[in-house]
């Protein structure tokens, strides 16, 4: 049985008579990349706030890394790194901002510089010396992710990490998430309202709708939805292909005149990769 690193059981969050979360239950297992999906305002960020202790839940229980008491819950939050927006001091450089958080997080003094260099290298900000207030949106997002992975946490929470990024930035974040799980054994929870973005990144998904996690599915569920196997063929002579398939008893469901996508053009031109 999989080991649950984050477990929410019937979490309710109310503001007066208005229930924002109406009984959220979800489980994230060790080693998962868990995609939390839902439209804007569905409650994804509120769920993260409950996990991180930035907002109190009205009822229910939250367990992190098997915590069974409030005290353990507090202590185990130290195992989480998270990105929920770029919360940095405008007058400090990327390195100085990370110095502050590294000290506050209790990373041993001797390891701080080495750890910051490692993190800045991962997020591609190693040579940047200017103050944070002069950063582009993409750089701010990268530094936010850098802060999240500072100290090599066991659990990583990323709230809409690709917001405002260009196509290359989005592709980089996807790569980074997989790398952090595969190379650093992190369990990742990542939210987005763009379904296509998470489909190829996450292993499991929680669909947030109307203040609850309406369904949890995994990649196998996505594959098993359709009983027949569909294959796509790229052919130049459509009439010959139709005849060939019909002669062999294979049905053609639909024909699509395929066009280049904007992403294809973009990555063909600049030489990057979407996946």
């Amino acid at each position, binding site marked *: 049985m999989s080991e649950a690193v984050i477990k929410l059981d019937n979490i309710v969050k109310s503001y007066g008579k208005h229930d924002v979360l109406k009984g959220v239950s979800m489980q994230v297992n060790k080693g998962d990349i868990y995609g939390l999906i839902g439209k804007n305002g569905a409650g994804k960020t509120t769920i993260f706030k409950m996990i991180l*202790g930035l*907002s109190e839940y009205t009822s229910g229980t939250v367990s992190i890394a098997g915590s069974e008491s409030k005290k353990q819950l507090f202590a185990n939050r130290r195992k989480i790194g*998270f990105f929920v*927006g770029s919360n940095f001091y405008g007058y400090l450089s990327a390195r100085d901002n990370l110095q502050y958080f590294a000290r506050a997080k209790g990373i041993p003094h001797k390891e701080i510089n080495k750890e910051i260099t490692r993190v800045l290298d991962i997020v591609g900000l190693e040579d940047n010396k200017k103050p944070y207030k002069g950063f582009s949106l993409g750089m701010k997002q990268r530094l936010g992710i850098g802060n999240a992975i500072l100290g090599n946490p066991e659990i990583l929470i990323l709230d809409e990490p690709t917001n405002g990024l260009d196509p290359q930035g989005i592709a980089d974040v996807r790569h980074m998430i997989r790398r952090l799980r595969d190379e650093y054994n992190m369990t990742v929870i990542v939210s987005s309202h763009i379904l296509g973005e998470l489909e190829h990144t996450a292993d499991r998904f929680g669909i947030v709708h109307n203040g609850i996690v309406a369904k949890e599915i995994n990649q196998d569920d996505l594959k098993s939805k359709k009983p027949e196997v569909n294959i796509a063929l790229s052919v130049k002579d459509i009439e010959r292909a139709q005849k060939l398939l019909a002669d062999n008893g294979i049905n053609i469901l639909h024909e699509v005149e395929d066009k280049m996508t904007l992403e294809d053009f973009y990555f063909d031109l600049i030489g990057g990769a979407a996946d």
Partner: protein
Amino acid sequence: MIKLIYADLYRIFRKKSFVGIMIAFFIISYISCLLGTVRSDMSTASFLDSLRKFTEKGFVLLLISIPIFLAVYSDEVSSHSMQCIIGRGVTRKKILWAKLIDSVSLTVIVFTLYMLLQYLMVITTDGLKFSPSQIGAYAAYGLICVLKIVAAASFSMMVLFITNSIPLGVFCMILFTTISPNIIRILYLQGISVMNYSYDMILIRSMDKLTAGASAWELIPWSAVYILGAWFITYLFFRRKEFDF
């Protein structure tokens, strides 16, 4: 908590505007004090009195207290960095204690440097020399100023963290540092002066006692009541505060 305090102090001393304002303040206050206060024909006692009057002009305390308040408290609110610390399992109580200790530490450091500069002025001026009792009175005066700034910062922190409004927090800091004694002085409740029960009056009375070489033990419990009282009220609001990203 020590790591949090260390991180905060590291951050504040990396803030160029804070360090720049402090250096400019030291230079300006030294020169203006030198030009306006020091005369070779004055006694050390009258010199000490002049220094006190110079510091009490208000702008000295404001120039020290506002940058400290902005660096310790306001930057935290404007950057939302506190959320990152809470999310990593640091309790809200520890954060508030760290903030209080930050403001005490910074005020002590800055005010000590300011007073050392004044002391330097004395020992480099012909004919002036502090007697041991004057040094004691001088140090007592420093302590009173530090307590005044820390108390003002604690009350302003309370307003800032409850309302989340930086301008209101800064306004309170100005109010508590310079304006409030003048307002309280003219306030009477059923014929009794409010000033008699204010923290400013406690500081003034304690200063008089310390200058006269007497004990002012009541300063400790009263300071605890005012400063820790403000801290506790802040905590009551802060412990359940909802944070946005």
